[in-house]
């Protein structure tokens, strides 16, 4: 009977050792690894979600930029560029001529202001416009000036009407103090931003 008991005890001991080995050396470290990897996968998933949201935000932002870019020529047309001073003066003279008035321009300190203009700045420059003609023509000229591009914002005005000597006509002189807006801002319009719709 004793050898039989010994045999069973040895078998039990071996089995216990085997179970202990598998539990301690294989199962526990593997479970530990799996737990760490699960945490890693969750972290990666969160990061991917953040990246996805960032991507979505960038996609919407690109669409908004593309929308604004479409309007850029119209927006840019509001401002005069220092390299196109002659075109600016000519456009004002043309407006006056087309409306039957004569014009005198005083650009004030335009050159000095333009010399100090920094990129992306929109600088208001006060100019004085003197118009000669009859009152209707002058009002028409003012109306066209106000809707012209580059933008002219009239700050104050004075219209004086005088009788012309030896004639039964009147002559009106308008003195306008106006603001023109100057910028050197250049926008890279060649590389258009693409709007990729999800639909």
């Amino acid at each position: 009977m004793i050898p039989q008991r010994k045999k069973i005890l040895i078998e039990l001991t071996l089995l216990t050792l085997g179970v202990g080995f598998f539990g301690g050396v294989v199962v526990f470290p593997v479970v530990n690894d799996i737990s760490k990897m699960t945490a890693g996968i969750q972290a990666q998933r969160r990061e991917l979600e953040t990246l996805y949201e960032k991507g979505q935000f960038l996609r919407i932002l690109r669409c908004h930029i593309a929308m604004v870019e479409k309007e850029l020529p119209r927006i840019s047309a509001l401002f005069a560029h220092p390299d196109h001073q002659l075109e600016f003066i000519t456009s004002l003279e043309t407006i006056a001529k087309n409306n039957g008035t004569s014009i005198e321009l005083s650009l004030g300190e335009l050159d000095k202001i333009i010399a100090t203009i920094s990129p992306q700045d929109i600088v208001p420059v006060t100019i004085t416009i003197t118009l000669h003609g009859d009152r209707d023509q002058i009002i028409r000229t003012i109306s066209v000036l106000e809707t012209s591009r580059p933008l002219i914002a009239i700050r104050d005005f004075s219209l004086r009407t005088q009788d012309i000597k030896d004639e039964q006509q009147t002559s009106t002189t308008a003195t306008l103090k106006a603001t023109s807006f100057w910028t050197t801002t250049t926008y890279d319009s060649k590389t258009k931003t693409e709007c990729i719709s999800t639909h």
Partner: protein
Amino acid sequence: MMLTLNLIPQQFKRELSLHATYILLKKIFILLFVVLCVSSVSLVSARMYLKQKLNELTIQTQAISFKTKDIKEKVTTLNALLKGTRNALESTQSWADILTAIESHIPMPITVNEITLEPDKTIHRIKLIGTSLSRDEYLEFERNIKTLPFVTSITSPVQNILSMSENAFTLTLIIQPSTLTQ
């Protein structure tokens, strides 16, 4: 009546009972061992699979990159441009329509020689200097001017109506900037 004979010795009975317990324990341990073996294989396989997935995810995450530099530059430029545009447009007031409206309210016998705008942040003043042939015509003109929607009030010195006949007048129209934007 049935008799139960207890012929097996007590010690041998205990041995048998212990042996049965050992056998049961052995079976439990064998079962546990088999379960552990199978679980270990499954767990090791699962670990390998998860490791592979984690590597794939890491590679995918690292592969995603956004070229935000050009977008940032564009947004900065556009913001500055739009801000400047808003400021420029907000500071712009159309005066031609107002001049046209005033002109249309000047009756024939009234002569306006000077129209001057005195702008201010809170209030605009348009000064009209002219002559009227009679007091009645001047008063009619004043009533007309008051009907203009943008005119909040007028300032008319008493000198304007001192004379019954031809008289020079100075009339100041008070305009609230808020009425112009409506």
